């Protein structure tokens, strides 16, 4: 009797949650990660994790309202059922993390404390200081260590995913490379879960870790996996500029009362504390009286961008605004936000408890990712309801299976059977804009909820009759040969001194890629600039074909690994630019100054990208919006021009 195995690629929150759930279900897991899993990018998440909770519930909040907020926050681009299921599960996930020992902040009586976060009027964000992601991943890392010590999980750390092995139309394993010995080999599996995160490095400097290249997703894309909404890239409103990266300053700073402002007088030379209240422009509070500083990220980003770039009102005439916490009690700030305030102090040299922080937007998160499907759950009203009135009774309770059917084998499965996408690399939950503190939730939800789907797929579908370890070696050998050839080509002629030619230097190509994508594909997009971007990408691809490395070592060759990922990032960049060009409307994070309106009739649809041969194409495919009717997404903006005015909502 053969033993089924599952491969999980990526050891962040989604990958670890999946590994725990699958190993617990009795199937051994091989866990691949380019870093020791404890160092995955999830550690960078700061603010918290959203879930309906008893305090909010007794004030009228509900899982349904969390669902409604997420759909509205995402500007009606996500298929709605998966989002409903995620919101329904959120309180259970918090309870589980609590049992695992996550040191959530506590109230005086010992209950889990809560904070306000973007896009909600209720406190529904649970947190552990201001390093919530770190604390969550540590809890899951510990559970995986426990399973590893029992032999149920085998970790392949410092192994890089190279390519999925697809045979007879289903995924039956991967090729991977040991980053130290450079050995390339194939691994068999009955199902593969991609949990490889986002692609911030496509934009050069971002809030992401250096490992967030998006290369793993791009390799799947090149192998025939569809990609959804590539153009939906979140630019976080508040980050600290740096020479190597742009460090996140959590939304929790605003959730805990932080105020964004600039001096009313352009280029005011005075220090912030010398500027009286009446001469400060709290532009978010002025424009959005209901939500104020906690409007969603895309809106805050555009407003900051507008104030600085278009109006020239940035602090000291530069692209920066104040994020001010100095009116709060310093001890309170240390307790609630210590981790992030320390980061600012460490990297900027000023104490944000006493001096307002200077911040500017930075690329942060990819709502888009590998396209996945699901099986709809039991809640299917005859007609979609209008937007939920905040604090009013929910139309349904939060039973398991209302959004997605628990255990259906295709939940979060890509178009390739047996190949799943969990966490940030799954396009499913956040539509055109992710709400703060929903990312940690979607990662763990995918791992726990869809982990069951993986187990059922193995048991009930193709692998049940035809397990991977009984398949012929041909498909595996072919992928190893393909990747070995790729390596040979990149190392050909590699030698110190090659770096001198910038046109073929991978680091220079990578930098130019980042600069171009940041300029063309972030806050404001236009057709002409995007076309220019496409031309630049074509140039970079041509240069990449001739790339020459400065290191020919057959041992721990980082330059080689980096160069290979540039080739993949270029493919992803093309999909991002193409999606942005073809989506001729503005929605969520995607703002086209030449198409400022949201256009539901034509574009309340998933951007479905495919890569075939050497070409990427996109088409727009309908979404399932059968639960909530689209409405204009204004967040109660006061002045005449709504933030993202909708055309007449399309009939759904």
């Amino acid at each position: 009797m053969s033993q089924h195995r599952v491969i999980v690629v990526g050891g962040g929150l989604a990958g670890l949650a999946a590994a725990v759930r699958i190993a617990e279900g009795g199937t051994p897991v091989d866990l691949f990660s380019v870093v020791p899993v404890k160092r995955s990018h999830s550690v960078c998440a700061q603010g918290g994790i959203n879930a309906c909770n008893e305090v909010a519930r007794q004030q009228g909040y509900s899982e349904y309202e969390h669902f409604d907020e997420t759909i509205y926050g995402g500007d009606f681009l996500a298929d709605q059922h998966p989002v409903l299921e995620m919101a329904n599960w959120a309180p259970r996930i918090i309870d589980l993390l609590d049992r695992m020992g996550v040191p959530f902040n506590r109230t005086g009586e010992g209950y889990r404390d809560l904070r306000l976060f973007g896009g909600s009027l209720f406190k529904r964000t649970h947190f552990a200081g201001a390093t919530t992601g770190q604390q969550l991943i540590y809890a899951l890392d510990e559970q995986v260590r426990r399973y590893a010590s029992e032999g149920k999980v085998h970790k392949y750390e410092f192994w890089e995913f190279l390519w999925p092995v697809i045979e007879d139309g289903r995924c039956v394993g991967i090729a991977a490379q040991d980053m130290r010995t450079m050995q390339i080999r194939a691994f068999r599996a009955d199902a593969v879960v991609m949990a490889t995160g986002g692609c911030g490095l496509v934009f050069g400097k971002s809030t992401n870790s250096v490992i967030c290249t998006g290369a793993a997703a791009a390799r799947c894309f090149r192998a025939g996996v569809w990609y959804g909404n590539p153009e939906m890239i979140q630019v976080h409103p508040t980050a600290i500029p740096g020479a190597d990266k742009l460090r996140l300053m959590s939304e929790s700073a605003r959730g805990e009362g932080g105020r964004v402002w600039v001096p009313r007088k352009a280029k005011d030379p005075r220090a912030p504390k010398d500027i009286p209240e009446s001469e400060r422009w709290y532009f978010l509070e002025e424009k959005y009286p209901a939500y104020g500083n906690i409007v969603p990220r895309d809106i805050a980003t555009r407003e900051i961008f507008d104030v600085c770039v278009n109006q020239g009102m940035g602090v000291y005439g530069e692209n920066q605004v104040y994020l001010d916490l100095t009116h709060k009690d310093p001890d309170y700030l240390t307790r609630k936000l210590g981790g992030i305030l320390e980061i600012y102090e460490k990297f900027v040299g000023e104490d944000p408890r006493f001096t307002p922080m200077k911040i500017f937007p930075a690329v942060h998160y990819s709502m888009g990712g590998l396209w996945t499907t699901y099986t709809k759950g039991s809640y299917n009203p005859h007609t979609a309801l209008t937007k939920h009135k905040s604090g009013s009774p929910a139309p349904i309770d939060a039973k398991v299976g209302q959004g997605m059917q628990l255990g259906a084998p295709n939940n979060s499965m890509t178009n390739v059977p047996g190949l799943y996408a969990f966490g940030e690399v799954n396009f499913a939950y956040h539509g055109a804009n992710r709400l703060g503190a929903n990312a940690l939730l979607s990662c763990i939800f995918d791992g726990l909820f869809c982990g069951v789907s993986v187990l059922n797929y193995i048991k009930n579908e193709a692998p049940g009759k035809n397990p991977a370890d009984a398949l012929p070696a041909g498909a595996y050998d072919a992928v190893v040969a393909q990747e070995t050839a790729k390596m040979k080509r990149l190392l050909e002629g590699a030698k110190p001194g090659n770096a001198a030619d910038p046109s073929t230097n991978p680091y220079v190509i990578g930098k130019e890629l980042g600069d171009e994508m940041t300029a063309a594909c972030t806050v404001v997009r236009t057709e002409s600039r995007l076309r220019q971007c496409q031309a630049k990408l074509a140039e970079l691809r041509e240069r990449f074909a001739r790339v020459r490395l400065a290191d020919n070592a057959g041992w721990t060759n980082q330059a080689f690994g980096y160069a290979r990922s540039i080739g993949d990032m270029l493919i992803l960049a093309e999909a991002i630019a193409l999606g942005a060009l073809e989506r001729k409307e503005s929605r969520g994070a995607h703002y086209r100054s030449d198409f400022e309106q949201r256009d539901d009739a034509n574009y309340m649809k998933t951007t479905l990208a495919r890569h075939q041969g050497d070409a990427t194409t996109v088409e727009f495919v309908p979404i399932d919006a059968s639960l909530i009717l689209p409405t204009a997404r204004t967040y109660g903006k006061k002045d005449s021009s709504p933030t993202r005015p909708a055309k007449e909502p399309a009939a759904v």
Partner: protein
Amino acid sequence: MSTATAPVRRNAKVGRHVFFRILRCEGPGKPSQWQEFRIPIPENANVISCLQQIAANPVTTDGQTVTPVVWDAGCLEEVCGACTMVINGKVRQSCSCLIDEYAPNEGDVITLEPMSKFPVVRDLWVDRSRLFHNLARVKAWVPIDGTYDLGAGPKETPASQATHYVLSTCMSCGCCLEACPQFNLEPDSANWDTAFIGAHAISQARLFNDHPTGRELKDERLDALMGEGGINDCGNAQNCVKVCPKHIPLTESIAVIGRQTTMHAIAQFFRGR
């Protein structure tokens, strides 16, 4: 998007060059050698951004073209622990090592070496597997029943949370081990279970011994810590607490575990096992 500027630190000279002396090694068993690079320093530079500059065009001060320097890095905001190395003789994360503070003047020198208590993989990158292995030695986890929905965990006072949170911010960077006179290089994993376990693992044992569910494994953790390479190997040098970037009270954890092992030994004596 990165045009905003942070204030230039006091006294740091704008437009200066800094020398990086880097201890390089092509792989296990290969000799180490120093190489020097002269790097122009932009605003907000840190050791990482300088290493990135070197990687893009590795030419030494004496004009020799060489391979890019290999180093380990992740979050670049001192929360993942990956980029730990020895900088000017002191172990720390390289991402939070700001050039304006370390080398404010033209011609200042910064030395970079790999940690010495772990086997070098290449250049500044070391293999810290043993550090994680030692977490498994003390079963540093809460033995939950499973991932099913079984309600909330135990309530906790804010004071207790504050204590646990600090212990739980340990990012497994290895600074405490690099600084520890009792923790020595041990490339052979067969010896890991009997070599000194290190302050980080002792502190994690304290964290989980104090958790209402984690306590279930307290005896097993203390047994491990009373064995060879356990807490008795601690020489009380107190270097660990001084170099911890997260200010974790490691010596306090060692004292707490010391008391717990004593009580555990007495209890074992009276139980006769």
